[in-house]
């Protein structure tokens, strides 16, 4: 709908809803608001007022982009609202009872997402606050889930101090995980290039693992956990393999396995 029509329609509705004694004052405000919209349209969408002031509703430092549309400078983002597991289970149950299977599936998927996000958060809590003097980057904590399916549950934690960084990635219940885990733990692969070993089998607290080194990205440790979880640790600017493995040992792998019900 054209903005003018929208503004005009809203104005009429609001004016009708207002008490009679307030209508005169209200209509004046409505008229001013309509004029502001008109000015905006006439100036090709540029919201800056002719007097250099700030029109109502516009942020003082919002600068228009080259197309004339202002760029967003404010807003508190979205409120984190993980799906309510119990409520979604009830919705799924009622939808199922009325044979509304599509709705039952959607609600069930939401319930699963809710549980997975809670599992992810509990794993983040189980990770150390600091590893080898590297503090965790709280803003970088991530739990993402696609529900049941290809990508599964992904948990990410970062630690950093100056140019030294450590990243933990835990992927669980992804469909491709079993093949990867089988490959990594087969013990059949070992590789060296030009006398330099870049990929080898190792162990982390009795769990079979693979360690890799790359000149540009640093160390990487992949530890398959149980049937469907992969724990991955990436370290940048670690002095050597020993130091990187010491960092890996700071993580309570058994606790992660326990939380994900991996044997």
């Amino acid at each position, binding site marked *: 709908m054209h903005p003018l029509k929208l503004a005009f329609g809203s104005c009429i509705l609001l004016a009708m809803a207002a008490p009679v004694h307030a209508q005169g004052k209200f209509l004046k405000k409505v008229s001013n608001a309509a004029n502001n919209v008109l000015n905006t349209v006439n100036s090709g969408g540029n919201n800056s007022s002719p007097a250099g002031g700030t029109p109502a509703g516009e942020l003082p430092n919002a600068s228009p982009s080259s197309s004339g549309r202002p760029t967003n400078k404010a807003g508190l983002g979205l409120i984190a609202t993980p799906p309510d*597991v119990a409520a979604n289970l009830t919705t799924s149950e009622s939808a199922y009872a009325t044979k509304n299977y599509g709705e039952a599936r959607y609600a069930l998927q939401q319930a699963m997402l809710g549980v997975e996000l809670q599992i992810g958060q509990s794993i983040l809590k189980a990770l150390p606050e600091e590893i080898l003097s590297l503090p965790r980057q709280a803003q970088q904590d991530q739990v993402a889930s696609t529900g049941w399916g290809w990508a599964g549950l992904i948990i990410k934690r970062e630690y950093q101090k100056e140019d030294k960084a450590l990243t933990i990635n835990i992927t669980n219940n992804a469909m491709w995980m079993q093949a990867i885990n089988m490959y990594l733990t087969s013990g059949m692969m070992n590789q060296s290039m030009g006398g330099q070993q870049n990929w080898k089998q190792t162990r982390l607290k009795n769990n079979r693992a693979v360690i890799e080194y790359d000149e540009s990205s640093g160390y990487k440790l992949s530890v398959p956990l149980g049937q469907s979880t992969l724990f991955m640790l990436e370290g940048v600017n670690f002095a050597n393999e020993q130091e990187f493995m010491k960092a890996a040992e700071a993580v309570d792998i058994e606790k992660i396995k326990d939380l994900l019900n991996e044997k």
Partner: protein
Amino acid sequence: MKLLIVALGLLLGSSLQAQDFAKHLTEARTAYTGGKLEDARFAMQQMMHELDIITGKEVLTLLPQKLDTLSANIPHDEVTGASGFTGVVIHRDYGKAIAQDGSEDKVSLEVITNSPLLGALNGLLALPILGNNPDQKVVKINGYKALVTKVSSTGEKDAFEVQLPLNNSLITLKAPGYNQDKIVAMANTIPVAAIAKAIQ
């Protein structure tokens, strides 16, 4: 009589599935309340699978009993697969398996539901550029965009298939021995809107 037995079988199957759904729901609730999140998640995965199988059986009841002059082989009806990954495959076929000239003459209708793998394929199917392939043509089946592909080689008996994408699901009709117009006419007897509603 045969139909009655099949119908009773389906009914009994759904009733058992309904019990399983309720059982897993109780398990999920108990585990969740007790803080056993991983167990709750596992029970929900079981529920999801039950739900997908039940939906598949529901879709079977929507499929036509006849396509052109061919009757449905109800005993061949199948709902199989893994929901959340390859998808659940709902299968029905029509007509006799072997034609008089000895060639395969069975029309098959398959609906794959809730497969994340289909997202990309369906995106491709919706691209009009595919219409440039002489063996492919974008048509409308009951108002939905679909792709007709000639799958037979030169010299062989005509064989076409119709693929109709629906978000994460795909309806495929294969009709060896039928020409393009005939398969499109057949496809138009499939209640696509009702299927889309059931699997949404």
